[in-house]
């Protein structure tokens, strides 16, 4: 499943979600635009991959088994090499408090499920452009 990306060739996106169907959807959405996708199924795996692969952008589900998305995000922001990596937060909950918690923990954008794949592409491109 892991596809070690060639950083010079394509932009690497780390996709963290415990549900296969969701991962397939995000993959189908981003594949088409030439992103290289790394996938993780839980919090620990997400942290491990982020530290080893250093993706250009991370799509992070808020609720995962074990370490939650918020925990992962807080850990990432402590890492000097990952503290500026853009993070798009996905959540099945649509409460204002969750949004504020995500922003406070350092998320750049926040999408609640169901989300528009086209909006996800636009958010990803926007964040990557801004970084460049």
């Amino acid at each position: 499943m892991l596809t070690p990306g060639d950083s010079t060739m394509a932009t690497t996106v780390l996709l963290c979600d415990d549900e296969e169907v969701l991962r397939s959807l995000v993959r189908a959405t981003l594949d088409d635009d030439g992103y290289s996708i790394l996938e993780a199924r839980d919090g620990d795996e997400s942290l491990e991959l982020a530290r080893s692969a250093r993706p250009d952008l991370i799509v992070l589900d808020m609720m995962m088994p074990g370490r939650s998305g918020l925990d992962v995000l807080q850990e990432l922001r402590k890492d000097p090499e990952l503290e500026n990596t853009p993070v798009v937060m996905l959540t099945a909950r649509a409460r204002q408090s969750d949004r504020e918690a995500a922003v406070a923990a350092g998320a750049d954008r926040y999408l609640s499920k169901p989300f528009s794949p086209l909006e996800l592409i636009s958010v990803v491109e926007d964040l990557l452009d801004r970084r460049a």
Partner: protein
Amino acid sequence: VTPHGDARTGRAGSRLSLSGLRTRLLLLVLLVLLPILGLMLYTALSERREAADKAQRTALRLARVVAVNQEQLSDEARQLLITLAQAPQVRSDDVTCNVYLSDLLRRWPRYANLGVVAPGGTVVCSAVPGQTSVDERESGFFEHVLSNRDFARGEYRIDGAGGRAIVEFGYPVLDDRGRVLSVVFAMLSLDWLNELAADAQLTPGTTLTVLDHGGTVLGRYPEPERWIGRSLPTAPIVEAVLARREGATEARGLDGIPRFYGFTPLLDGPGVRDVYVAAGMPRAAALAEPSRQLKRDLVVLGAIGALTLVAAWAGGYFFLLRPMDALARAARRLSAGDLSARTGLHHERGELGELSQTFDEMADSLERREEELRQLNDELDERVRERTAQLESANHDLEQALASLTEEKERVEALYQFGEQMASESEFQALSRIVLTELCESAAADVGTLYAIEDESDLDLALSASHGLDSDRLPARLRTGEGLAGRAAVERRVVAASYGETRLRLPAFGEEVSLQHELHVPLLHGDRSLGVASVARLADEVFSPGDVDMIEHLAAQAAVALSNAVSLASARRQASINRAVLDATVEGIGLIDPQGNTLLANASMERMSPGRIVGIDGADAVDGRSPAVAEHTADPQAYLGAVEAIESDPDWVGADEYELAASGRSFERYTAPVRNPDGKLLGRIFTIRELTAERKAERLKSELLATVEHELRRPLASIFGYAELLVARDLDEATRESYLDTIYRESGRLTTLVNDFQARVLEIEDSGAPQSS
């Protein structure tokens, strides 16, 4: 010595001896008079003794009448206090209570005061302003009421300010758990003694004295102001009363005047020292009649004796002495030597004839004396017969007086028993039956009915008891003014009727009876009419004025008891309604007094007492301040905080929630101080509401919401995302099919979830419904 001189001397000598004869005659007369005098003195002595006994009996009866009167006053006070203890005004604030009691006191002027005492001895309410506390050492009743929770009376004592003797009666005011809330008391002064004496029209000089156990005068008629308060334990009558308690005697009174006394305990009973009443009849007045009789008899006897002596004296001279003197003179002439003259006595009329004539005259005189004596004897017999008849007549009078006394005693005893019987019953119907039965028996009536007005708003009369009649066949109700009974009720007076030949026929058990004479007596208590008692006789015997008086008197007593029964029933009914409403309330409601004692707890409170739920030994039903509960709660600190807030501030008002850790049951508790309209703190109310079901419903609802957000959004995200990709992108057939397949699968998952949620929503609705327990 000359014959003449001899004759004179002889004459003088014969005179002397003859005068001795006459003296003996007079002595004989005196001897005859002596037994008469003795009989007279004996009779007089008997009469004096009889008069003394009668005076002592009268005095003792008078003393007992006073004692019976005191018992009636005591009973009356008891009845009044029982009614008072039930009155809501007595349990309300001071002002209402004061007004109520002073109003009541105007209607019962016999009492010196009426009031209410708190268990601590403070007078909280008093008809006469100024009394603030009850002095336990002096009154005594208060402790008995508290310990026995029943009627008690104190001891007579001298009221320092008023200079009169007073006694208090008390009765407890109980809450619905039988605890003493307060004590109502009535203060009675001994003034009634003088009123009673003034009404009784006593013989002048009669005294009534009330003494305590130490010989101090508590009451005196007449001249109460001269004697009340004086301690005279060494006065002869006081010593006799204290030594014998009840009886009769002759003694010198407090004022030194000798009297006949009767005395008896005035009020005796357990735990209270004796008080006595002594009635005194003046000795001089009691013995005046026998003394007068004796004097009169002595004067008559003296006159008869004097006349008899004069007659004897004169008769002796004319019929005895003069012929004897003549005979002696003849005898002296004979002794002078005239022998022929001596013999001539037997054969010739000369000296002999004179002598025989003298002897004949002497014999005649003696015969007349004898006749006189016989007549005197007859007179004496006649007098004895007269005296015997007089004595018999006096004896008959005495027996009649004794019979009327016995009758009066029975009447007083009947009245007393009637009162006792009525006091023993408080249920209206049962009381009605007792009243009617007693009225019929007292009036010697064969049948009777009692129609009562139980409800003041309903003036119709309802049949509540019948005597000797078949109650099923009597009218159950009478309209106001209907019939003679209705008329008696409306006009508030006794209505009597007699039927003569056209008799009124009424159904009795198994037969019809004919009424000859009826009496309808209204049962009146103050302004209130309790009903009508009707009694009737089958025989042709009219109700005498005495019968009517007796029945009216009994009816008045019965009305008091019936009125009390009505009040009591009404109070009980109201209390049971209040209790039922409280017990039907779902919330637990409890009230504690400032010391923490439970005053009230409804059934829900008994169930929801936290101490009892967690099993603390001896937990009260209302234990809102018990810190021991805290360790059984989910949040002991919060619970202790609420307990501390209540403890530190009597005015604390608030609500808190706690959850019992073991059962998971949670409760909302509200508490506030309870004050009467004057602001006096009565206690603290707690209400408890169980929140367990509500809390469970909230938890399920919150879980469901989380699930909806999380579970539903996931398949929705796939469906929405793939659908958008299908719309927005130009995809090859295989990809399109794969996307549609996913959409279809996720839609199925979504449907399953929606069905599942629907089931859980129903579960929440069920658990949120109010619990049937």
